[in-house]
């Protein structure tokens, strides 16, 4: 029986990334949805950049940023914070790499909420925050779930960016996709199959869930 820790590490990383990005992504997506400026296109392009940027490039620059050889990394190191080749490092890399997969569906959903939902709620005496929690977010539950699932799936499959900043340290940064690569290099095809089948099953389940959500959304409409 192959070691289960890479699978558990991948699940932990994917879940943490999805939760943290949901919390960070909601205010950013909202701000982008209401922002009316010519500079918006620049910020939106930056948000989308990780989709087309090679993961190794993201990993490389994150490695440079957090390296103790540089001012920022050195300052963190003085506070006892070490990012490269740790779980925190691969979590930060995942947050950057999967950022657009959370923010884009949320921004689109905020833009599709009719302005008069906000207005009716205000005339009924509700504050902006109350309106957001009780009216707006429940009406974009499909987008929230889609963003969460896509981010989760994307993180489960990460390889290059994790290899760059995390190395391949068992129990710390060796996630399932890296385990497949290591086992293949060691010609241990059974272990590679084991991890691959688990990732394949998770991917099929995720695609099924996204399609189910889209079907529900169409039925609601």
């Amino acid at each position, binding site marked *: 029986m192959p070691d289960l820790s890479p699978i558990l590490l991948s699940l932990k990383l994917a879940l943490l990334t999805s939760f943290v990005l949901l919390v960070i992504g909601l205010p950013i997506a909202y701000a982008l949805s209401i922002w009316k400026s010519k500079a918006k296109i620049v910020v939106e392009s930056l948000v989308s950049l990780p989709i087309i940027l090679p993961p190794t490039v993201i990993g490389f620059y994150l490695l440079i940023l957090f390296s103790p050889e540089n001012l920022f990394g050195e300052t963190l190191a003085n506070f006892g914070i070490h990012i490269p080749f740790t779980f925190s490092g691969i979590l930060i890399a995942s947050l950057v790499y999967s950022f657009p997969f959370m923010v884009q569906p949320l921004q689109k959903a905020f833009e599709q909420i*009719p302005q*008069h*939902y906000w*207005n*009716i*709620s*205000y*005339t*009924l*005496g*509700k*504050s902006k925050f109350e309106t957001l929690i*009780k*009216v707006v977010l*429940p*009406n974009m539950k499909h987008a929230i779930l889609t963003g969460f699932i896509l981010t989760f799936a994307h993180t489960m499959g990460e390889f290059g960016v994790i290899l760059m900043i995390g190395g391949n340290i068992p129990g710390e940064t060796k996630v399932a996709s890296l385990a497949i690569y290591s086992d293949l290099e060691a010609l241990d095809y059974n272990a590679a199959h084991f991890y691959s089948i688990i990732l394949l099953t998770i991917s099929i389940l995720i695609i099924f869930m996204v399609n189910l959500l889209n079907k529900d959304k169409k039925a*609601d409409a």
Partner: protein
Amino acid sequence: MLDIHIKKQIKSVRGETALEVQAHFKNEAITGIYGNSGEGKSTLFNIIAGLNSPEYGMLHYNDLVWLDSVKEINLPTQKRNTGYIFQTNSLFPHFTVKENILFAVKNENQHEVAVSKLLSQVDMEGMENRYPHQLSGGQVQRIAIARALAQKAQIILMDEPFSALDFEMKQKLYSFIKVFKKKYNLMILIVTHDINDIFYLCDEVLWIKNHKATGTIPIDEFKDEIELKLRNL
């Protein structure tokens, strides 16, 4: 009564222009806000509800100052207690009818609201657990009115409430609003570009022409003006 005197820059098809309205709306009356598309009717409603602010403005409701641009007073929407009913989607789709009505009531007072009684007042008994998509356009508007009742709204603002309804549904809603106004002595303002809505429902009319309106006119005067206009065509 509601006294309004506002000036606001708005965008029209001919570029930027000023919406200027001076009027006095009576309590216990249905007043139609009439004008062509793009005249600024909905902007005027948003200013009354506090959703939009004019560059210059004064808005008094009974003895309360809602807006005074000189004294920098601008009462927030949440404190104006206006019931706002839109053309479509006046209800929140994720709430049932009952939840939509209770949303208008403060949490601590929710137990005092008899939703079923309110629903019977708008001829919608037994609809508590339906969702808006399970109702017709006219039923949605009636539930929105029940919500305004639960909210104890002082003024009801209806923005093109009939435009998405068929003829029969319109007739039903016209009669309903007339009975409802008499029963609760409410001030109802209706934005419309359809003269039939005005003829059937309104006591007075504020006619916005070229983005300007000064004072309301009685319904008979409005009818005469429309007739004259038609004769001159």
